[in-house]
């Protein structure tokens, strides 16, 4: 694949002005910005992003396409060669942004593992499943030969793949999407990471298979105590897997709260609109609330609050300056000038 490397495109380390990283956090992301080269200069898709993840915590990140929810993690793991990544991502005292490729390779998979939406294209189509897991075990745990194979089989059993011994010899195309996602999870577990980032782990799967994978992720988290970041556009998946929820819009954080509060007393109009746009399985059927317009392009963001042009409650102040986070409750804030605790902006009774 050809990659276009513009001038000065290499990750820039620019953390000198930042305060000391949170010592309690497993991963501490501060002022992370990511820009891609566009036809008229750099386009910033993630803007001054901050996030702390505690060991063993389960965080859900919700957002629509282009909100920056996936690109954050690709940036942290150094997987965006043509992008400009600025800011800091600190894990166990090591700064990941700007780390050499060789050193980063020992972090990927071993400390932070990532699984993606489409498992079949994440696996190598020309290698058997067993070989791919054994390779991961060789890299991360130094196992080889029969030991690696036995361990690979144990990992397949760990993710509840039936006939694990036979499945080691299967190619990805011989397995279903759900089975391949289990293989991906087994691969991720092989490095025994502290943090698993699951990027839309169930989006490509059927409903009943999605439920299987959600239950598997819950179980693995319970048993291993690893921290889990679930990235999804599906509020239901987030509701089940996350303890804390972060809502993103146009490369910015707009709200953060414990999961129950996000669903019961969201403060940001975007979060409220997103919740009201999803049809429900119970209760009276009402007309869906829609958020007018569409997500702005990263190259053409509105001044002030990025949500203001779509927000039914925007005031002239919203167009002037970007809102700073307002605390609504313990561990709950929203970046909105109009947010107040207990205020429901979208009328859900119609």
């Amino acid at each position: 694949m050809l990659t276009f490397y513009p001038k000065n495109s290499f990750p820039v380390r620019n953390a000198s002005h930042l305060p000391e990283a949170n010592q309690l956090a497993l991963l501490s992301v501060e002022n992370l910005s990511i820009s891609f080269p566009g036809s008229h200069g750099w386009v910033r898709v993630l803007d001054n992003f901050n996030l702390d993840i505690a060991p063993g915590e389960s965080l859900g990140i919700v957002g629509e396409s282009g909100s920056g929810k996936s690109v954050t993690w690709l940036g942290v793991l150094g997987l965006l060669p043509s992008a400009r990544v600025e800011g800091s991502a600190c894990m166990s005292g090591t700064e990941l942004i700007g780390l050499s490729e060789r050193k980063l390779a020992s972090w990927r998979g071993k400390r932070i593992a990532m699984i993606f939406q489409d498992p079949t294209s994440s696996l190598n189509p020309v290698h058997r499943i067993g070989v791919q897991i054994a390779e991961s075990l060789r890299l991360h745990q130094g196992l080889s030969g029969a030991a690696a194979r036995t361990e690979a089989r144990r990992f397949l059993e760990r993710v509840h793949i039936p006939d694990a011994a036979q499945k080691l010899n299967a190619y990805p195309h011989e397995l279903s999407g759900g089975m391949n996602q289990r293989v991906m999870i087994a691969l991720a577990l092989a490095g025994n990471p502290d943090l698993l980032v699951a990027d839309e782990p169930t989006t490509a799967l059927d409903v009943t298979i999605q439920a299987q994978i959600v239950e598997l992720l819950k179980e693995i988290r319970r048993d291993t105590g690893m921290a889990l970041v679930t990235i999804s556009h599906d509020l239901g998946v987030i509701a089940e897997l996350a303890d804390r929820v972060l809502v993103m819009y146009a490369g910015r954080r707009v709200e953060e709260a414990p999961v129950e509060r996000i669903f019961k007393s969201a403060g940001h109009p975007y979060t409220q609109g997103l919740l009201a746009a999803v049809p429900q399985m119970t209760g009276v059927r009402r007309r869906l609330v829609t958020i007018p317009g569409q997500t702005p392009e990263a190259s053409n963001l509105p001044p002030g609050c990025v949500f203001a042009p779509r927000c039914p409650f925007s005031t002239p102040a919203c167009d002037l300056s970007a809102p700073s986070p307002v605390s609504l409750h313990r561990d709950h804030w929203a970046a909105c000038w109009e947010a107040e605790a207990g205020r429901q902006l979208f009328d859900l009774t119609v």
Partner: protein
Amino acid sequence: MTPLLLETRDLRRVYDVRRGQGAFAPPDQLVAVDGVSLTVRAGETLGLVGESGCGKSTTAKLVLGLIRPSSGQVLFEGEPLTSLRNEIWRRQRRRMQMVYQDPLGALDPRIDAGRQVREPLDILRQGAPSERQDRALALFEAVGLPRACFDKLPQELSGGQRQRVVLARALIMDPSLLVCDEPISALDVSIQAQVINLLMDLQDRLGLGYLFISHDLRVVRQIAHRVAVMYLGRIVETGAPDDLFRAPAHPYTQALVSAIPNLQARLSKRIVLQGDPPSPIDAPAGCAFHPRCPFASELCRHERPALTGKSNGGSVACHHPDRHLSALV
């Protein structure tokens, strides 16, 4: 009751496939759709629910006459859908249109949106050119697209706008039936709600019948008047959405409803079906669901259950419809 728009009788579609490699491998039969009978009335939405490979999309193509059934019949507006590509077929096809999942794939990338909407009228030379233009503009307004989008190429539009263009194009021949195959699956959540509301408004205004295919039970509950659940080519349960989703009788429907992720399921145990749906090439004997069903009895392994009526107007194809999976967890 409004008139019957669409009726299918015992539709069946079989494909010959070769499972092995080489020219002499024994042929196999893949039964994609097996005995599907359904109806859609004017102004009504029938939601067709099921997982990938269950035959939803094949059913859609059979309904539109895009593929021919191996056996069975499609009746459209009271007359059989002809398999001859003649004048009758062309007249029928104008009255039934399709909306696909991926609007970008359904639109020509090099023709501007307005001309694509007008094109069916141009091809059929219906009305004067200025009338065609006016009609296309009127439809742009009807689907909530700004006038400025008329001269834009599909790539210059957002996902939601593209799906509106596809809808406008489907509506320009003044159809009575729209077959929507996962029409909102490719869209973002906030845009999905816009398109769902639009589909419901258009139905109210134009009295359209919808065959609405989706894997998303929430969306189906929102939009459908009746629901049919498919599993491995057969309809296993039908009913009004609230009856069906509140008290599903078929174990498969029970599992589908239980599989929807939500805040409550965080704490409670859910019914998780084991395994994947079997391949339609070697569908299990008896009830196709029995290998995944915890209630499967000897009867289920040998005899296929027929779709029989329930007291609330729905129907279910199960030998043990009184058993509920939630009793097991």
